[in-house]
């Protein structure tokens, strides 16, 4: 720095850099800027000490404050639970019908039930109950075990063919594989079932099938195929089919029926959550 060049006009030193005859002045940074920079360094060091930061040989430095985002989250959850108790206490003491009759509780339950449904039920029943192959749509008006609030509540609680003493469980004989009916009889019955929902059929076969149906199927499905909620026997006279309404699917269902399962949610979800989920499911299509 022996011979620093000075700018004649301002008397300020130049940096010695020159571009097209224009020289750069060495204008000092303000002190406050420097101290702010130091303060940032100090802040960073303080942060390392107070919060979890560096890896060590055994895990990582925990920080003097012992802060973890997981711990903060758990605390938030506790707080949230306490805040929600205003609602959840009411829900736990009321029946599902009473909840649905109270507009405020209804709105709360639908919102809460929505997230419960999305986390637990949507993998099978689809988002917002839109259904999946072999899993019933919950947004329509066709219900296997009944679509009243109470019926839905019971189904969610105990499941279908689940490991629970109160579970809903229906059975349909293996008409084909147990050789109760001959393949011809099954074919005729299928033709008749198709006619119940107004589809194209072979009238002669359907006529024969009517007797087969009356003898073997009507006990559960009703003589007009209207279904029985108490037994979980589907209605066969509408356009909604759980396992497809194609004839081959109907034949296969009579020969060796598929029987769906659903877990019992008691024990996995709290009773309040089950009520909320039931109210939500009922709201998807208005239930019955």
């Amino acid at each position: 720095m022996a011979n620093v060049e000075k700018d004649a006009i301002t008397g300020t030193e130049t940096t010695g850099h020159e571009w097209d005859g224009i020289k750069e002045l060495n204008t000092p940074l303000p002190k406050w800027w420097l101290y702010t920079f130091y303060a940032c360094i100090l802040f960073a060091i303080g942060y390392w000490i107070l919060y979890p930061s560096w890896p060590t040989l055994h895990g990582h430095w925990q920080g003097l404050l012992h802060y973890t985002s997981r711990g903060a989250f758990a605390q938030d959850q506790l707080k949230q639970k306490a805040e929600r108790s205003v609602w959840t206490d009411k829900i736990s003491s009321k029946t599902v019908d009473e909840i649905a009759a109270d507009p405020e509780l209804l709105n709360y339950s639908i919102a809460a039930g929505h997230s419960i449904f999305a986390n637990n039920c949507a993998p099978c029943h689809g988002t917002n109950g839109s259904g999946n192959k072999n899993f019933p749509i919950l947004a329509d008006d066709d219900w296997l075990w009944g679509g009243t609030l109470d019926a839905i509540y019971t189904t969610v609680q105990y499941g279908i063919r689940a490991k629970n003493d109160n579970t809903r469980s229906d059975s349909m004989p293996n008409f084909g594989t147990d050789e109760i009916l001959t393949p011809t009889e099954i074919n005729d019955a299928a033709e008749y079932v198709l006619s119940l929902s107004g589809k194209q059929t072979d009238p002669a076969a359907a006529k024969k099938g009517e007797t087969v149906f009356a003898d073997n199927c009507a006990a559960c499905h009703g003589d007009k195929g209207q279904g029985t909620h108490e037994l979980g026997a589907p209605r066969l006279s509408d356009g909604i089919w759980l396992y497809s309404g194609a004839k081959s699917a109907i034949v296969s269902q009579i020969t060796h029926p598929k029987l769906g399962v659903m877990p019992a949610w008691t024990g996995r979800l709290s009773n309040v959550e089950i009520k909320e989920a039931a109210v939500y499911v009922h709201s998807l299509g208005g239930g019955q």
Partner: protein
Amino acid sequence: MSVISHNETKNGPKKAEEKPSLYASHIKVYPQRIAGTFRRIKWLTLYTLLGLYYLVPWIRWDRGPGAPSQAVLIDMPARRAYFFGIEIWPQEVYYLAGILILGAIGLFLATGLAGRVWCGFTCPQTVWTDLFMWVERKIEGSRNKRMKLDAGPLTLEKAAKKISKHAAWIVISIITGGAWIFYYGDAPTMLKEMLTGQASQTVYGFLFLFTATTYLLAGWAREQVCTYMCPWPRFQSAMFDEDTLIVTYEAWRGEPRGKAKTDDKIGDCVDCNLCQNVCPTGVDIRKGSQLECIGCALCIDACNSVMTKLNRPLNLITYDSISNQNARQEGKPERIRLIRPRTVAYMALLTIVGGIMAYGLLERPRVEVNIQRDRSPLFVTLSNGDIRNGYTFKILNMLRRERTFNLTTEYVDNATMTVIGINGRDRKNVTLKVGPDTVGTYRVFVKAPPQSLKAESQNLEFVLRETGAQSHVEVDSTTKFYGPKK
């Protein structure tokens, strides 16, 4: 150029032997007290603005039972903002955007007309700094006394003065920070809670934050906020033109400066430096318009006091436009042009935006509808073949009374509605009630026979009419109705 010369006057040219310093110390500005017209205006604006700021949260406004009775309140938990008779919902936050736009245009207009009047008279930084300087002057004395005090050794008296000054500043800062919080809660309750230690951590956190920023910005940073931190001086020159009135030194009249009027070649400026001594940002206005000058006009007061004493014409430093100054220099008639394309454009914009906002505020139906169509499932086929779509229907009732609405649909033939929580299914019209000042949320299912569907997706209109004699509000909202592929 101006910045460099500014440094030069403070430091003096550096000597060659001096080691180059990488960091420059801040040069403290010691503004001198001056009386005059503009100082009086500044006091008046200071009283008015600070008075408004500290007192407004305490104005009560009866809004009936259950509603906050604070006239100006931003109620975060309840998501409402109140301004006297006006209530703003989160959905209407565009009014805030409108006010910001109005503020910006207003600022452009004021700047185009009279330079940095906002900076010099009404900017919070200026106002609080002014207040803090007044305190400083009361405790530490005049400019000379303050300079001597700072240059002198640390005596008991100096310590006492410094401590009491900072204590006073901190008290003002606490009151300032506290007043800010009153705008976000019921002021009397908040004050009681804050004094008794019952307020939430958030409240104390913000109290600390606002106190600290007031103390630092108005006490320590002062003019540095204007010169280094504030973006406004960097581009306000875009609002200037040669007809804008700005604080100027009439160089043609003042120069060459001189102490005594011994010969006629000497100008009116006696080089007393008073204009620079009173300047809160340490500017020598005689060097021309500068970034640091906040347009506070105190140098006008200063020079006028000198000119009065010397019995010379006033306004050597004055509010003047460049074109006017040129005209005067040439002896041509003065001419102040306030109406110019630029100012007319700003005023027109101001009127239009203000008009739109006022119209919007007056004509608010105080009911708004939000409709969310179910996306999954898009539609459901029912057992009898009918197609059903689901909607979440929200009615925002912004009035303080329960209202009853009648909901019907249009465009889709033979459509019927079922609303969850309301008895009666498949109806052509449904009665919906929404409580005072709340959002009513309803699940609405619309069902139509397949023959009614003209396409895979078609328009469906919900018509919501308020029933009862009091109002004829009607809100139409169009959404989509989906069905299977045609």
